[in-house]
């Protein structure tokens, strides 16, 4: 435990104290306790368990309207992409030399789509959509990817319970994977 050491011999005249660094640090008493209301203002990350999804709901049809007014300029009439990335297509492409990584072909969790739209979209006006609008457009993108019916209602349970096609497509970093050795001479002839 660290602590304040007062130099009574050397610095005693000045009454100076010097902190000694040790295994555990003290508390410095800095910062202000955050209230629940303050935390709620910024706490927008949604993990795959969906527990942090906000109240709200919307329909896929409402999502189409949001998409056509706020998203279509960058992502295209058919979500095929343009200035922004494609949001659909690419199924079966991940093993080819031209993989198309979209919500349908690549994204492992629908919660990620909700989280990303809410925090960072539309590109020119991030965090301008209501939660209902985010549910709506999330549902529309999932519908175009054939993951929700056209008449579906979208809420927290819809997003949290949806199994995405590529959910099992990821594995934790297992590098180092290369096995280079530091050959010094005639390396191209005797690799």
């Amino acid at each position: 435990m660290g602590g304040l050491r007062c130099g009574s011999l050397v610095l005693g005249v000045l009454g100076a104290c010097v902190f000694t660094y040790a295994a555990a640090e003290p508390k410095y008493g800095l910062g202000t306790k955050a209230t629940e209301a303050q935390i709620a203002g910024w706490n927008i990350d949604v993990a795959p368990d969906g527990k942090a999804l906000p109240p709200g709901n919307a329909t896929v049809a409402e999502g189409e309207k949001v998409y056509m007014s706020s998203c279509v300029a960058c992502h295209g009439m058919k979500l095929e992409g343009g200035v922004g990335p494609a949001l659909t297509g690419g199924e079966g492409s991940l093993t080819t030399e031209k993989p198309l990584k979209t919500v349908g072909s690549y994204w492992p969790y629908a919660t990620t789509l909700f989280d990303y739209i809410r925090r960072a979209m539309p590109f020119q006006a991030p965090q301008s959509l209501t939660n209902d609008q985010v549910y709506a457009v999330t549902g529309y993108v999932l519908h175009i990817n054939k993951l929700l019916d056209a008449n579906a209602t979208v809420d927290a349970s819809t997003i949290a319970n949806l199994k995405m096609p590529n959910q099992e497509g990821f594995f934790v970093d297992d590098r180092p994977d290369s096995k280079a050795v530091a050959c010094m001479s005639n390396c191209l002839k005797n690799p």
Partner: protein
Amino acid sequence: MTKKSTASAEQEASKTPLARRDFLIKSGALVGTAAFGLVDSKLVMADTTSATSLDPNLPLEVPQWTRSLGTPTASPYGKPSTFETKAIRSLYPGLKDTMSAYSTSPLQELDGIITPNGLFYERHHAGVPQINPAEHRLMIHGLTETALIFTVDEIRQFPAVSRVYFMECSGNPSFLPPWGKTAAEVSGLVSCAEWTGVTLRTLLNEAGLKPEAKWIIAEGADGAAMTRSIPIEKCLDDVMVVYSQNGERLRPEQGYPLRLFVPGYEGNTHIKWLRRLHVTDAPAYSREETAKYTDLMANGKARKFSFVMECKSLITYPSGTQKLTRKGVHEMRGIAWSGHGKITRVDVSVDGGNNWTQARLQEPILTKALTVFRAAFEWNGQELMIMSRAIDETGYVQPMMEQLIDERGKVSFYHNNSVQPWRVSSNGEVTNGRA
């Protein structure tokens, strides 16, 4: 200086490279000597003499700037010489939009291990926010004893540490053409600086970590609200919340007033404009750690949480678009780095990787920082294929690109730390050896 003494100095200058060359050969430090055999010393002497001849403007004139006053003292913020026109950042080749974009450090114009702040590479996802530090806050909440909000001034009151670390974008570069022309175009998404701030461990101690804390989700205050999840072990190891870079406050494009710094991890995790640290028991699986910054293998499966930037090196002189203008001994220069620790060795080759020689490492050799290497080599008009290969303290050897492609395929995009070849042609011009 008189004419006589000038001529004498010129003679001295012409002798020095030859003496240096002999030393290099005797000490075995000249790269490629074994491969190409000893060069006829008379030829070297003749070439050296002609190559070091001064411009015929003798007698030396006293220049205008010696006979007049310069500019006034104390310009508010100093700038490079106006003659240094090449030491600039460039938008990554092919990019048009500048809001979600990246710029490269001009590696071929830089010396040493510290990247000047104005030349540090950039990657923004929604432009550069201009933040008044008085209005900025950092909140730590979640699996802590106390949820806390800090002002920037309070963050600066914690015990400070200063450490030199590199930072590198994980897509530096991809595995597919077009191949970059210059060192900056090939690997300019790496830079190095001295960072000052508070360790994240200190901040977490202030809030009090609960035992079930396993991850920290860091979030920025920019229009992308950039979000990455960092394992708690790393957070308690060497992660910092920084406010200064190379002695001055962070530049806006580097996260002013606060950024997360995650030594050795891919640049995207170093959240800029840091406003929130959410302590959790699981990662967020944010867009940046799923749709982006995952490495797609040839079999269609993707590597996730591939954080560490593995050992890498790059020759910056001579490098693409530069030119050797004389025959004789030259100094090859470059940088090496590893997200796993210190660089222990760099080897260089002038014959396309057939034979290798150990380069000299320049002190200081710091953990997770750029390390400079140098190696003398001789060029007499023959074509060379020069390359460097770094080894770090874990024993990991920087691979050839073919070795990475064998393991991963060609579309994994991120984490290409392979050996970079440069071709020196018979006229001295240097181009990318992959092209």
